[in-house]
């Protein structure tokens, strides 16, 4: 089964867990299990009519579950369940491997402690010696959760959308290639499904009506490398869930952003005899990695790498294997792995360079500067190159620096200074610039069922944001939603961790939860949307006319979002 295979394939991450979550989050044998599983929601927080409800799930980090936007008028929580992966494991459940799960009534009790900080403190999330996940003014999770499912307590509309959440460990998010996060995101998806099923049964109670609550899962995360097809572990799992359905639940949709890397020069197409620069930044404490994919059905390509000082090595791998690149002094300056990946399988080289500033004396280091990657031999379809994401997120301590591809024939901006959208029509010609913008969609959105959301401006309406990733065909996603007020005023105002707090953020991470909110409402209102095609049809009907990607338009939100200022 997909989920079980992922646990096997990412077993080293599980071994490494003590380095990724606070010690207090690792369950102990002597901590008692709860007396009973407990109900998910206080009766006053339950939908008054399950036939007109939909479950919204948010997988993110530093989610302020005690925020008033996630409560009803009586003060009871609309969060039916949240898995806080970094929280102190003061209670254990047999299916919670680390951290702590809270259900609605437990959140209600914590909110009675006083201000929301008291709730987060009691979970060990504001502890200077252990975990400071909620000891910030702002967070990505606060913005995303509010956009997806935040309602004023007095707004009865909120009761129609019970919430589930998973707050991922910050250490896992800090490493932006996604290498560490796959296991945790899969566990999060599994938790959401498990609890959504049980929540649906609780809400239906002894009703004999055949009602299946729909579920919309927002995953505002993105990575750059990985298979272009739907063979990645997370996309396979999500596709299987949406396609096959789950007992007790109605339609299940995963909403993901297209990512923010369209202009970052992370993708290229090279043909036989061509090479390209790979700029490795100095003082980078994290490895830099690039994938080189051969075309489907063609022989394994031959590649060569060249260091900034001109040393060249043709990689002698013709079948799955791995090796180390040594410099003249016998020191490791790189590693190359050849695999068959994807469905159908394609040859994939992963070239990994160690940090240019290792954190430990004696560790391998790579010289900074302009490396070059060369395709010595390849089929006539050429090779696709994609650099692993390796940037620094706001609010995190990582000092990672993103490497980039450098093609002398490529201009990042157009002649009028604007950022280009899709690749030109002749991009697949061998003489065309090598760097690609098409296909920069996050790997989490390359499946067959996810709803892919791009970003646009509020003014002029529908203009695609400069950073917004593109699907393989050059379109900006299945749908777009504004995350920037205008060209000169980027971002939108969103809630922060505390009730009075606000933050200004931008990015497709904010567009996705707007679609989650819209889709949950459409499903709760009885719209028949079993799959991505039906979603497009529903949008077309709602927008009246036009071509995809449809612009969701200015959202109505319970705070001033600043998109029309």
């Amino acid at each position, binding site marked *: 089964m997909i989920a079980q295979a992922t646990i096997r394939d990412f077993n080293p991450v599980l071994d490494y867990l003590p380095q990724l979550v606070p010690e207090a989050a690792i369950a102990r044998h002597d901590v008692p299990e709860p007396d009973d599983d407990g109900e998910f929601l206080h009766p006053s927080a339950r939908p008054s009519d399950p036939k007109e409800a939909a479950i919204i799930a948010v997988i993110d980090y530093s989610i302020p579950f005690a925020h008033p936007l996630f409560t009803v008028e009586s003060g009871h929580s609309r969060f039916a369940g949240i898995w806080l992966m970094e929280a102190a494991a003061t209670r254990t459940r047999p299916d919670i491997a680390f951290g702590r799960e809270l259900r609605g009534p437990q959140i209600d009790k914590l909110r009675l402690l006083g201000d929301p900080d008291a709730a987060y403190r009691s979970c060990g999330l504001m502890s200077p010696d252990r975990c400071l996940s909620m000891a910030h003014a702002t967070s990505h999770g606060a913005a995303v959760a509010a956009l997806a499912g935040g309602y004023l307590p007095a707004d009865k509309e909120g009761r129609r959308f019970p919430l589930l959440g998973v707050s991922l460990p910050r250490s896992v998010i800090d490493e932006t290639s996604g290498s560490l996060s796959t296991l945790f995101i899969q566990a999060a998806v599994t938790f959401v499904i498990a609890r959504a099923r049980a929540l649906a049964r609780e809400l239906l109670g002894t009703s004999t009506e055949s009602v299946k609550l729909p579920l919309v899962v927002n995953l505002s995360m993105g990575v750059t490398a990985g298979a272009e097809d739907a063979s990645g572990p997370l996309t396979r799992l999500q596709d299987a869930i949406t396609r096959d359905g789950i007992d007790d639940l109605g339609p299940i949709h995963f909403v993901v952003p297209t990512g923010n890397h369209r202009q970052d020069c992370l993708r290229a197409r090279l043909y036989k005899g061509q090479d390209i620069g790979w700029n490795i930044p100095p003082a980078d404490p994290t490895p830099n990695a690039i994938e080189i994919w051969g075309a489907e059905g063609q022989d394994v390509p031959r590649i060569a790498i060249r260091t900034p000082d001109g040393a060249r*090595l043709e990689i002698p791998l013709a079948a799955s294997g791995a090796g180390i690149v040594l410099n003249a002094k016998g020191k490791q300056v790189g590693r190359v792995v050849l695999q068959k990946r994807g469905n159908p399988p394609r040859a994939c080289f992963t070239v990994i360079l160690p940090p240019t500033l290792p954190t430990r004396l004696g560790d391998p280091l790579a010289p900074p500067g302009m490396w070059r990657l060369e395709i010595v031999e390849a089929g006539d379809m050429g090779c696709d190159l994609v650099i692993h994401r390796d940037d620094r997120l706001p609010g995190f301590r990582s000092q990672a620096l993103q490497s980039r591809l450098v093609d002398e024939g490529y201009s990042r901006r157009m002649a009028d200074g604007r950022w280009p959208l899709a690749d030109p029509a002749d991009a697949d010609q061998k003489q065309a610039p090598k760097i690609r913008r098409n296909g920069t969609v996050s790997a989490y959105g390359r499946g067959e069922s996810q709803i892919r959301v791009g970003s646009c401006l509020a003014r002029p309406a529908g203009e695609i944001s400069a950073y917004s990733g593109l699907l393989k065909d050059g379109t900006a996603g299945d749908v777009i939603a504004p995350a920037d007020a205008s060209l000169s005023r980027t971002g939108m105002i969103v809630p922060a961790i505390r009730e009075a707090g606000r933050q200004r953020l931008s990015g497709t991470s904010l567009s996705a939860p707007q679609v989650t909110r819209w889709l949950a409402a459409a499903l709760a209102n009885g719209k028949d949307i079993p799959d991505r095609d039906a979603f497009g049809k529903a949008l077309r009907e709602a927008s009246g006319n036009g071509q995809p990607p449809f612009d969701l338009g200015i959202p109505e939100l319970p705070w001033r979002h600043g998109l029309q200022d």
Partner: protein
Amino acid sequence: MGLTTPSLTWQEVPADESLIPHDQKWPLLDDLIIRDPSATTDIGNDARKAALLALIDTAFGSTS
């Protein structure tokens, strides 16, 4: 002056497929995970895996 002529050599590394088939591995993990033999926990990997598998069963089994 002892300058070294730039050159590179290749050292093949035998694949260890004992736990994870080579083509299923995520190559970057070996560079990101610092294996610290002295790190100890009071609950082992087996228990964590069992909990994750129990969650899978809850989610995708016949009842939850």
